[in-house]
């Protein structure tokens, strides 16, 4: 998720004593294959990227920049299916225990070196090394255990797994794991510390000023994958010389930036969509993502141990109203964590999206509920989580359930979540695209997982192993039915993200990813 830019210069003092630390990728200014100046797309980042070392730090804010610079063997298309990127093709052998990737020939790193299987293995070893906090390390040591990575020839990489696993390629492509990036070993300094990212993407890392912006520069020697452009796979072409990602944390300032023409593309708040669309020079693209909003119900809590009460809470919530209320009509309610864009999405018949007051009354009576207070933890750092808590509170109170909201600072809420120390939480989960990822977010024995049911854990494990898509779907449906029955959480909606853009851009497309891809985007 993170990449680094080389420290280029340190402090330069200006006439009035203003000084900056300028971080930059030196090769961006030395290699003729990397474009300087010319056409530029200016995009907004809601927060600054931390952006250093993928194995030593891990966070999601770097993703919009990172995905333009580095690539993995495989990536997700807009339909959430995996396709090759650095790989030409891949095959599953040995009943799902061996994955063989054939690399594309002639792919160049930003330093001019040619990609080989040794680079793939080196990157893998670096990410999986002891002390690494790369997000997928635990997965590849646990649920999808990789025993060995072999390089029989310069263009072949073989992954040998401990057990057959159908989700291996999906896991490699996970965006929250930076798509298992492949970077050149000279990304590290001589002393082994992280220096600068040298990837194979259509853009190379350029100048970065921490707290202000990060730039990526067109890589002229980029060798694109074949096929029609589709999400993060297929044809990729840098159609501008530079993309500048500016840190603009204030939502109002982002809109002013779009309207003034100083920003070409930026995420905008749901309530601003109509306002943006009224501008002649601007438009909005909406993307239903896999970012999932839910009300977590802790089954360890003495009150919420009562299944009938959890079911009553689920029955009293009008998911559609919550979704519409929080997103100003952009999102649609859902009763499953599985996103609609996934091929494994299959809503149950008579999906319970609206509240059912009669059923709620019956369940409350069955639970023996006598007005005991239930506390929902929410925060205001992420306004959507707070807004959904408010709407849910009013709906539950209307059903006779005594609910209070405890507003915490996000760091504290996350600590309670990680330790499983809460009664109920208004929460949202980062996007997951792999078939079982939707369920893996909540199922497991770890303290942070809200659903520790042995049956669910067993089903999840089965689903992770399955290689046949029909079998995966059947298992997912089984988990879904159990989820509705047990109600460890109330699924509410998947966030629809709005990105405002200047109409001078051509090629901005809707995709289920959290951020728009800016390759294949040109300036009219």
């Amino acid at each position: 998720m993170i990449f680094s830019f080389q420290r280029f210069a340190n402090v330069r003092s200006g006439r009035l004593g203003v000084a900056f630390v300028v971080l930059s990728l030196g090769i961006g200014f030395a290699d003729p294959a990397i474009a300087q100046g010319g056409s530029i797309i200016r995009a907004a980042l809601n927060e600054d990227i931390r952006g250093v070392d993928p194995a030593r730090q891990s966070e999601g804010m770097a993703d919009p920049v990172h995905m333009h610079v580095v690539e993995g063997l495989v990536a997700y298309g807009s339909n959430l299916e995996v396709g090759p990127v650095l790989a030409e093709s891949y095959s599953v052998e040995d009943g799902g225990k061996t994955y063989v990737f054939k690399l594309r020939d002639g792919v160049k790193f930003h330093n001019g070196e040619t990609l080989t299987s040794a680079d793939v293995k080196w990157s893998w070893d670096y990410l999986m090394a002891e002390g690494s906090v790369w997000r997928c390390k635990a997965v590849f040591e646990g649920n999808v255990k990789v025993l060995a990575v072999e390089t029989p020839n310069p263009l072949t990489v073989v992954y040998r797994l401990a057990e057959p696993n159908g989700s291996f390629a999906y896991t490699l492509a996970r965006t929250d794991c930076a798509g298992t990036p492949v970077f050149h070993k000279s990304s590290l300094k001589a002393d082994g510390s992280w220096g600068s990212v040298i990837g194979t993407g259509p853009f190379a890392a350029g100048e970065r000023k921490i707290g202000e912006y990060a730039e990526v520069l067109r890589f002229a020697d980029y060798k694109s994958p074949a096929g029609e452009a589709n999400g993060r796979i297929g044809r990729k072409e840098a159609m501008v010389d530079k993309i500048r990602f500016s840190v603009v944390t204030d939502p109002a300032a982002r809109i002013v930036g779009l309207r003034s023409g100083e920003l070409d593309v930026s995420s905008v708040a749901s309530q601003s969509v109509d306002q943006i669309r009224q501008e002649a020079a601007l438009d909005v693209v909406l993307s239903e993502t896999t970012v999932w909003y839910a009300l977590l119900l802790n089954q360890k809590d003495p009150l919420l141990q009562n299944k009938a009460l959890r079911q009553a809470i689920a029955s009293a919530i009008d998911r559609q109203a919550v979704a519409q209320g929080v997103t100003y009509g952009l999102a649609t309610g859902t009763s499953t964590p599985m996103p609609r864009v996934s091929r494994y999405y299959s809503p149950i018949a008579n999906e319970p999206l609206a509240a059912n007051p009669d059923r709620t009354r019956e369940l409350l009576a069955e639970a023996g509920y006598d007005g005991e207070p239930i506390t929902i933890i929410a925060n205001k750092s992420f306004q959507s989580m707070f807004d959904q808590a408010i709407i849910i509170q009013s709906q539950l109170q209307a059903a006779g359930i005594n609910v209070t909201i405890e507003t915490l600072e996000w760091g504290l809420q996350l600590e309670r979540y990680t330790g499983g120390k809460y009664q109920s939480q208004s929460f949202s989960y980062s996007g997951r695209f792999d078939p079982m990822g939707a369920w893996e977010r909540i199922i497991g024995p770890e303290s942070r997982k809200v659903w520790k049911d042995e049956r669910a854990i067993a089903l999840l494990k089965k689903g992770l192993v399955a290689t046949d898509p029909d079998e995966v779907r059947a298992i997912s449906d089984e988990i879904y039915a159990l989820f509705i029955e047990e109600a460890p959480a109330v699924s509410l909606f998947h966030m629809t993200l709005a990105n405002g853009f200047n109409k001078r851009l051509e090629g901005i497309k809707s995709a289920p990813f959290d951020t728009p891809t800016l390759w294949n985007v040109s300036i009219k």
Partner: protein
Amino acid sequence: MFRYFLRRTLMTGITLSLVGITVFFIMRLIPGDPASLMLGESATDEQLQILRGRWGLDQPLPVQFGYWLASLLSGDFGVSTRTGQDVLPLILDRFGVTATIVVLAVAIAVAIAVPAGMIAAWRQNSLTDVVAISLATLLLSIPSFWLGLIMLLVFGLKLGWVPVLGFVGFDGDILRALSFIILPVVTLALIEIGVLIRMARASTIEVLRLEYVTHARAKGIPEWKVLVRHVFPNAFAPTLTLIGLMLGNLLGGIAVLETVFTLPGIGKLLVESIFARDYPVVQGCLLLTATVFVLINLVVDLLYPVFDPRVTVE
């Protein structure tokens, strides 16, 4: 004077030590785990432990404090857990941005508000006074973020005179750099003008009522001379104290304006670091701003006798 300076310097050292100890322990009392915030909701226990170990957060608090203090005394403020940068250059860079805005804004505010407040007092209850006091009250009442956004909309968006996003340092094109800071400077100056006008007016009214002013007038000294030579020094002394406090407060960060104008200042850095539980940066920021605050007030105290000779530093 020298003894006074030494005593104040010693007190500054004690104050900063107390600030350091307080900041260190209060930050760690705040719930929330920096490792969790870094790794997000999918972090495993092993990963959390790795990061905590790397940052020394798995050590007992006194040990952590000892390490921090030892590093601090050797000039090492630590490394940001959020960005991996060395803390000292980071906060100095950000402080430079904030200081540029604040010093310019306060200078402009003083240049406008002090004469305006004095004139309003001199013409007490006249139309001039009513206009000045109304303007001051209006400026005091406007939230800075709102005024900032209006400035952006009018001068950046509608008129297109200045850029609305970003910041450019003064190490290149000075005019371009100015175009980026003019709106935040003017916004901040307008807000502070309101406070300063009221202060300058109130202290001038008080001085104008003193007998020595009447005496000076009775001697036939021209009115402007009475105002400039006799009223201004005495009336300005309380305003100077206020300016000192104002500078100290503002140099500690103007987070709201820095956010609205997308300025990489120390206020925004501090807020972001608090939310990320980036202990080294928070400690560094607070130590720096406390030092600046104490030094400014020391300078104000030393300057006070220049304007009001009745006050001596001894």
